[in-house]
């Protein structure tokens, strides 16, 4: 953790962001309802409650689409990294909108009969073997449960208790949840929708999100494979010292699948794991600020030589031994225990660019 990081998430920036988000959600739902009532009035009487259920569903799906696009966009362009800062708040807001959609639909369609509404949700329509008549509500319910688990564990309390890898793996369930929501829409609203607007918007949103993820992933995969790992007596040849921009890092893949971030700060070079202790953020995409490696996601900081957060914080990350030979930076692929002090490699005059 760094001295710029505030453990209490509520600050002026986040409050303003949340207010803007709530206002945008309100405006979107209002405009959706107004257009819906206007366009359907000529044909048949549009039920405002049903229109509101749909408006809430469309809003939640649109918000989730934006959330899922933020990750790959930030990987493709560092300028979008600040958007990641508030992504969790946007996620919780999405869950609240989805809750309103789910709750209203449950009350409106399943609470008037003798059955428990939750039981009615699954058995009132038994056509599980039909496509046009499939009870699409069940798909939405499973996706809603995933969003619930994610929202409930979104606080840093759970991140610390579950550990970052487990927490991250749990929150990757949002991908199947999004696919379930697409099928919820296809088998629900799109089965009776006459206009092409909904199919085009739903398909376009899904293709955009999946395309961004696949493109960003493919680009990184190629970058990893493009790094030729030359081993010399067990050490890995990374690059020339001056190939590393000052106060920044070069990220290199390691044989066991991890990544190392090799930082240059002035005439010194140190290497640490690329995974931040907070949320596994890519430390190598950050900068050295005030003498500390600063994670681009939430500003957690570590000293480059020992991987320990500056006082009063105590987080530690793994360091790697570094050396410079024949104007090349070499890293020992075996990580040191987190917090182990290493000697930075010093760039001699031979390593400076000529001219």
């Amino acid at each position, binding site marked *: 953790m760094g001295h710029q990081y505030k453990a209490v998430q509520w600050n002026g920036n986040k409050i303003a962001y949340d207010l803007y988000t709530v206002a945008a959600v309100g405006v979107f739902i209002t405009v959706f309802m107004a257009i819906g009532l206007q366009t359907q009035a000529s044909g048949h009487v549009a039920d405002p409650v049903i229109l509101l259920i749909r408006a809430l569903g469309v809003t939640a799906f649109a918000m989730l689409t934006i959330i899922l696009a933020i*990750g790959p966009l930030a*990987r493709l362009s560092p300028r979008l990294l600040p958007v990641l800062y508030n992504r969790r708040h946007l996620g919780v807001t999405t869950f609240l909108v989805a809750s309103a959609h789910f709750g209203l639909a449950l009350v409106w369609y399943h609470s008037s009969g003798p059955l428990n509404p939750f039981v009615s949700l699954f058995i009132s329509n038994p*056509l599980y073997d*039909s*496509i*046009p*008549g499939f009870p699409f509500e069940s798909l939405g319910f499973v996706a809603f449960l995933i969003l619930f688990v994610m929202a409930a564990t979104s606080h840093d309390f759970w991140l610390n208790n579950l*550990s*970052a*890898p487990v927490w*991250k*793996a749990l929150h*990757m369930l949002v*991908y*199947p949840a999004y*696919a379930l929501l*697409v*099928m919820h829409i*296809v*088998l629900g609203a*799109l*089965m*009776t929708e006459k206009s092409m607007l909904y*199919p085009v918007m739903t*398909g376009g949103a*899904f*293709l955009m999100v*999946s*395309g961004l*993820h*696949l493109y*960003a*992933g*493919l680009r*990184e*995969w190629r970058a990893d494979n493009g790094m030729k790992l030359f081993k010399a007596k067990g050490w890995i040849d990374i690059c020339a010292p001056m190939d590393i921009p000052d106060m920044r890092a070069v990220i290199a893949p390691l044989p066991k*699948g*991890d990544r190392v971030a090799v930082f240059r700060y002035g005439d010194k070079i140190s290497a640490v*794991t*690329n*995974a931040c*202790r907070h949320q*596994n953020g890519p430390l190598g995409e950050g900068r050295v600020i005030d003498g500390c490696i600063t994670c681009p996601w939430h500003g957690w900081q570590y000293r480059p030589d020992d991987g320990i957060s500056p006082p009063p914080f105590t987080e530690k*990350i*793994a360091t790697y031994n570094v050396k410079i030979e024949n104007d090349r930076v070499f890293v020992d692929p075996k990580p040191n225990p*987190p917090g182990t002090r290493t000697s930075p490699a010093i760039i001699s005059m031979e390593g400076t660019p000529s001219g």
Partner: protein
Amino acid sequence: MKRPHRRVHFLIWLLIAPITAVVGFVFWQMRPATPFTELPPGVEAVSETLRDASEAH
């Protein structure tokens, strides 16, 4: 600490994207009022009843 490799994200999407896109499109093609429509059993029963009644007359 080992982070889930970003390739995992890529592989998940490589699995989810084509399946969802193809299945979603095929199912959408089977919506009512398209040539691919598969009528729910309840609707087919009503349809047969109406057809029988029509033939009886």
